């Protein structure tokens, strides 16, 4: 009887726990459902906020227009209104309702956009598009200042979805003849005609300070093997880095890195921290100082852009492009830069943002970085080696992150690699705690790296180890709040707490010294 009672009690408790868990999951899903919009619906025109949403690059050809002489402030307003018209047109074609269409198209031309959107919707298609760069020529400005005719040669990108499935994508370079009328203080498009002439965009030339030759890197025309290290200071990893870093700390750490015969650093540029589309000068100066100090220590730097960035959607491309332009153009001639890494582990976003969406953005950003800085290499730091060749035409060298068994590494080194390879992150943690079943010791770390470096040497691969220091604290948004995940991440360093060098530090130092 007692046994039956116990079983009964166990059954009740388990049932209660089970029902509670189910209720919790269902209610959290419900809350998430109602708090997440299916599609973004822009109910109100974000007055004067188009700049926050859409910033394609543009250039005006020297003004030689017929009619009235153009005023500077009027040209600024025309530019603002004309570029904004593309934002609203693209939003409409993507099936999103935008009140702004009315402000940027006259009634008759608005009908044409609406018609195109209607046709698309009828076929259950969705067109996600954006313009990237506009080359504008003012043809005519009327004497009363209410009418302009301009020619716009623009590069645009489009993605076609059918029944919510990605179908195809492409780039388009086209010229348009456009007539705009000033109505209610808005320059509205009256006529827009796709014209026959196409003006090629300017192509920038490279000084080729870093380049590749077959499977090898060349820096200033000398063969180069990157013996790199991912760098954050012990006290200021991730988001804490850029607000706390100072020259003396960098000098001391870079000196230490150089003493261990590393020749390359990898640092991260968080998208939001650097100001997003409006890159903050304060952080540009900090990045510049870091590069100067690295150069002083004869270290090359891989800059990983777009850290903690999720704006892959086409309608936000212009914002990420302004971020790219703001940083890359500033440092395109800096002697410390080895390469630009577009994004850290973008394949981890495939599930949440859609593989095609992420891949299209990566391809776009590679092209844009190449156009802003033809002097340096471009890569993508994949989390998994299976994706490394997917954008092979866009990257200059392959890179992925490797934390698996050293002996398995050769299986990922495909014979058909036609470009250099860099293991952008690799390493082993040394976290051991009595309660953690997968604990590793400093000796384990040493063993792992000694085996991995053998494989690296046999295959002549460049690498960047993760990381210099064990971290004292890690922000929650890096690996979450789960303690064992945080603790593992804290213990990947070659230098442990109280700045005590682990055995692996000497191993890497010795290896770097002999690895040529």
């Amino acid at each position, binding site marked *: 009887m007692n046994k039956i009672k116990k079983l009964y009690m166990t059954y009740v408790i388990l049932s209660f726990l089970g029902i509670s868990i189910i209720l919790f999951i269902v209610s959290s899903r419900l809350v998430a459902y109602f708090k997440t919009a299916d599609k973004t619906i822009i109910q109100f025109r974000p007055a004067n906020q188009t700049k926050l949403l859409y910033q394609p690059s543009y250039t005006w050809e020297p003004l030689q227009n017929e*009619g009235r002489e153009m005023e500077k402030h009027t040209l600024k307003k025309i530019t603002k209104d004309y570029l904004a018209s593309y934002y609203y047109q693209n939003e409409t074609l993507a099936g999103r309702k935008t009140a702004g269409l009315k402000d940027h198209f006259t009634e008759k031309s608005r009908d*044409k956009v609406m018609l195109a959107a209607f046709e698309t919707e009828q076929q259950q298609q969705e067109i996600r598009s954006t313009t990237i760069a506009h080359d504008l020529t003012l043809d005519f400005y009327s*004497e009363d200042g209410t009418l302009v*005719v301009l020619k716009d040669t623009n590069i645009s990108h489009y993605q076609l979805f059918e029944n919510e499935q990605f179908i*195809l994508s492409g780039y*388009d370079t086209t010229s348009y003849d456009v007539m705009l009328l000033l109505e209610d203080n808005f320059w509205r498009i009256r*006529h827009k*005609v796709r014209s026959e002439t196409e003006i090629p965009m300017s192509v920038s030339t490279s000084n080729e300070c870093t380049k590749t030759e077959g499977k090898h890197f060349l820096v200033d025309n000398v063969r180069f093997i990157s013996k790199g290290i991912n760098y954050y200071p012990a006290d200021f990893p991730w988001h804490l880095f850029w607000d706390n870093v100072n020259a003396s700390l960098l000098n001391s750490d870079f000196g230490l890195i150089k003493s261990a015969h590393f020749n390359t650093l990898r640092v991260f540029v968080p998208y939001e921290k650097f100001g997003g589309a409006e890159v903050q000068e304060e952080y540009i100066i900090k990045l510049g100082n870091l590069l100067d100090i690295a150069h002083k220590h004869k270290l090359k730097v891989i800059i990983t852009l777009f850290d903690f960035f999720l704006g892959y959607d086409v309608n936000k491309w212009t914002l990420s492009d302004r971020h790219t332009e703001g940083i890359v153009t500033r440092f395109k001639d800096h002697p410390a830069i080895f390469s630009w890494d577009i994004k850290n582990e973008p394949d981890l976003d495939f599930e949440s943002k859609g593989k095609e969406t992420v891949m299209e953005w990566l391809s776009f950003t590679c092209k844009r970085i190449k156009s802003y800085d033809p002097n340096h290499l471009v890569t993508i730091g994949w989390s998994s080696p299976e994706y490394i060749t997917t954008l092979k035409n866009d990257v200059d060298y392959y890179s992925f992150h490797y934390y698996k068994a050293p002996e398995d590494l050769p299986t990922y080194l495909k014979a058909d690699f036609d470009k250099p390879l860099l293991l952008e992150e690799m390493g082993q943690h040394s976290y051991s705690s009595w309660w953690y079943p997968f604990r590793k010791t400093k000796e384990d770390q040493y063993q792992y790296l000694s085996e991995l470096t053998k494989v690296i040497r046999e295959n002549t691969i460049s690498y960047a180890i993760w990381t210099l220091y064990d971290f004292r604290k890690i922000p929650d948004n890096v690996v979450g709040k789960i303690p064992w995940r945080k603790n593992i991440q804290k213990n990947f360093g070659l230098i442990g707490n109280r700045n005590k060098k682990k055995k692996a530090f000497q191993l890497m130092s010795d290896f770097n010294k002999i690895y040529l």
Partner: protein
Amino acid sequence: MLLTGKRQIAGKLPGISYAIDIQEGARLRLLVLHSFGLHSWQANAAECVVSFPTSSELWNHSGEVELKLFFENQLLSEEKLTILPDTSYAPLVEAYCGPKQILTGGEDFTMVIGTGVDSLDNPWPRGTAVDYEYLFKRTFKKRSVNTKTLHSYTRFFSDDESGTPVITVASHGSSHSEFNVTLYPNRPETFSLEYDRSHKYADGKQVTAIKTSVIKDELRNIIADGTLVYFKIVSNLGTTTYATAGMVNGIATIRLPAPKEAMLWTVQAFIEDYTKSTESSIEYLPSVKPYPVAFEEGMMKIGPIKGFSYQFVPDHTEINITLCHKDEHYKTVLYTAGGKATFDPEKLNLTRGLYDVVLNCGGQIAYKQILVQ
């Protein structure tokens, strides 16, 4: 190979067809990039031909269209097709004119912009002739200008006479509703002032009308009604008065009350940033006749004081009295009653001595010496 002709008329495209060597039933996709976006259709290949049902109104937009043919996301063909505006019917004329107010004299101009659009709102092709006509009194100007990209334009310079010219824009037999442009007179010429008043005495009551001559530009056009004229009146006593008036029939008029005492006004009028009048003077005489002043039994007796038409001045008329003795000055004010006033110097607690007394009533000055005991 694209079977459809590469130059099509807007709204009249029968469909897009390709001759293609592909297995029958293959599902092909056509991507079309046009002026206002892009579009895609799918169709099955049949007997080496694939036809896309393109009854879409998207073909209504003129301009270049890019066609891309895909099979299983492989680009098979990339062609360009030009959609031309439908010119088989007379165009609708789209025209803009401005500025609508210009100045006479031949230097100022209005700009007229014209273009033709077809029934589907597509601009007519480059080189379309647009006819502009300008009609005003004895002037008739006509010219034909071909469109460049989306428009043509012309300038009509102003005539010498003010008025309302009419401008028409036409193309291939259609015309736009006419534009009316107002020709305003140009920069006004220097003008003169004149004034009108009942009498010349400073009685503080009568109204003086000061008005400009008829203000005209150099081509003798009367300056537009409502043009603001600023008047500046400076008196010989150092006071300055400003007044403004709008012009009616070329004349601006202000009305001011006469001063209360004799003075000389110097008046000048301005049209800001353009021109000014000649200076004009207006003299106001005292409104009071010379009056007797007597000093008897320690009292000063003033009056009777009479006005310019020999009537007694109104009760409470002001008399300013100044008493001077060596470096001492005393001032006081008296008011008349029945045309007279009395003054007792003892009330001022004056020191003994001989005083010069100056009396001023309405600008009429009288002098008297008195001995204060």
